[in-house]
């Protein structure tokens, strides 16, 4: 049993949170830009906004829970329609599985591709640090950095070679053979550069050496971009991607379109049923509908040449005026309600802390 006292405290607490939820966006709107900047809201707006999105995103489990509870029970106790519920749960699990698998694979590949890019970025960074020695940041001596670069570069080059051969064997380079050729050329170039780097003494960062590094980083960047294209087209043939595509394109999209297509049929029944000219009002509605329909098809022009322009006029003048009025009215009502929501102005609101 909850005492009224506790209830009141909760009610207060809920109202305070409701107010807090709105205060940021409200201030962001009502304060002049100069103030928003000086308060640092502008600088962190992105992160703060993300924070709000995160809160909502956390609710995603509510729906899942509700569905699994309802249909899970039906399957377990074999209630009427348990078979359909089973189909639902299978669909759910399959989709989660396929999406995760495809996602994880994507993460892995991105990691590989990034690692190749990093070789280039690192080379550039070494050059930058030579040009303008870093402040407040400790870096190993020039020579060690370069040898680290060369070692890592060798390693990544072998990785790219391995993957290229893999995709050739798997025959997944059908449409991308040009790509494979390109990748192989670029590996060759990068390798050659690496060999060249190995043959140089790195005691001192001379202009010539630094130039070599810059050139190397550019070659690696090129390699990385064509490697990523090849890798993606290779993954498109992976099992997880295929399964995902099957569920998404083969079922999800198709079912969605089919449902929508029903409307095309229902609209016939609606038109037949509802456009009885009983009153002037329904008559007006019918005439407007027919004119607009004729105006948007080629056939309309054969009946009357200016049909499209009449349609246009109908939409631009009377229709948009009425529409604007509806939106404006609803908008004003929404505004008042928004203020009430934010300030929890309720005689007996959801914010009552009763349990």
């Amino acid at each position, binding site marked *: 049993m909850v005492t009224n006292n506790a209830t009141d405290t909760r009610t207060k607490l809920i109202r305070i949170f409701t107010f807090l939820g709105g205060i940021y966006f409200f201030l962001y709107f009502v304060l002049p830009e100069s103030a928003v900047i000086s308060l640092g809201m502008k600088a962190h707006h992105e992160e703060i906004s993300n924070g709000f999105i995160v809160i909502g995103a956390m609710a995603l489990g509510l729906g899942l829970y509700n569905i699994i509870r309802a249909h899970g029970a039906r399957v377990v106790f074999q209630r009427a329609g348990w078979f359909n519920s089973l189909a639902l749960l299978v669909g759910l699990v399959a989709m989660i599985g396929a999406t995760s698998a495809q996602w994880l694979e994507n993460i892995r590949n991105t990691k590989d591709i990034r690692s190749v890019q990093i070789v280039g970025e690192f080379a550039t960074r070494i050059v930058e640090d030579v040009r303008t020695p870093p402040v407040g940041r400790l870096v190993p001596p020039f020579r060690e950095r370069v040898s680290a670069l060369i070692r890592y570069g060798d390693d990544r080059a072998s990785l790219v070679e391995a993957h290229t051969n893999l995709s050739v064997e798997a025959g997944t380079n059908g449409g991308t053979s040009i790509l494979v050729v390109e990748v192989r050329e670029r590996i060759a170039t990068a390798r050659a550069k690496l060999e060249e780097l190995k043959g140089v003494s790195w005691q001192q960062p001379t202009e010539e050496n630094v130039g070599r590094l810059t050139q190397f980083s550019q070659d690696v960047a090129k390699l990385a971009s064509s490697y990523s294209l090849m890798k993606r087209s290779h993954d498109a043939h992976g099992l997880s991607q295929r399964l995902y595509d099957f569920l998404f394109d083969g079922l999800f*999209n198709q079912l969605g379109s089919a449902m929508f297509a029903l409307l095309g049929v229902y609209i016939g029944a609606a038109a037949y049923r509802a456009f009885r000219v009983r009153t002037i009002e329904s008559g007006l509605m019918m005439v407007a509908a027919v004119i607009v329909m004729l105006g948007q*098809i080629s056939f309309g022009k054969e009946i009357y040449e200016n049909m499209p322009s009449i349609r246009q006029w109908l939409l631009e003048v009377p229709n948009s005026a009425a529409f604007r009025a509806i939106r404006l009215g609803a908008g004003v009502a929404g505004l008042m309600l928004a203020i009430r929501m934010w300030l929890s102005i309720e005689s007996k609101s959801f914010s009552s802390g009763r349990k």
Partner: protein
Amino acid sequence: MVGRRLIYLLMILAVGLPIVFGVSQKPSRLVSAERMYDVVEQVRVQPGEVAMVWFDFGPNTIAENEPQAQVLLEHLFRNRIPVVLLSQYQQAERFLAKIPNDVAKRLEAEMPGQQWRYGEAWVNAGFRPGGAIFIQSMVNAADVSKFLGRDVNGMPIAQYHTFSSIGGVERVKLVGEITGLVGVFDNIIQFFQKNDYRPTIVHGCTSITIPEAYIFLDSGQLKGLLEGIAGAAWYSEVIKEHFPKSENKQLLVTNTALSAAHIVLILLIVLGNIAPLFKRRGLHHG
């Protein structure tokens, strides 16, 4: 009374027959589509400047939105305007990947030797949740490419040379919003703006939302409009005028099937008004 199921059947036949026999007619002229063509045609970009096109549609409205997306991209690609593709709508992600590829392939087939490659002609920033909030913070970001971070392949967008230095949102020279959803469209209209910046927005809407779109066209918040599939059909005709090799037969057959269905619908309305009369007379006799 004509039975409900009979009407259902009638509608399916009306749509089906023209498709089975592949009948195609010239679409009717749409001024709004021509206006939009001119708006897009006038867009000129300096290095680093881009167009940003939102595919905010799912399988439910592809029939209308996909052709629109295709004609708009075709036009931008032909003019070599780099495009940032993204979406506020989860189910759009497949089309973000598919449509630009199709268009690029078609153009490459039409003009051998020329290339439209991912990362150069376009980049796919994928689905971005958060709607209004997301758009607000992008508009305020110092560098759009940094703000968007990674593309759908997990690559930093700034890695692609063409998109490495977009900078502030002012450098987005054209905003295309292709959707049948009123909410996401409102997000663009309401939040894709700054005190000192209002983008050129063009919009591909489904026929449902045409009237609403007109309000924004009228108030100047929209600069161009594609009205449903008819809009796309006429836009493709305008493109064809300038580039005779451009292919659009499929689009025209669809458009014709639609006309046929419209006529049946109008007949149903007439029938709906006549049938009761007969019924009443029947009663008198009985």
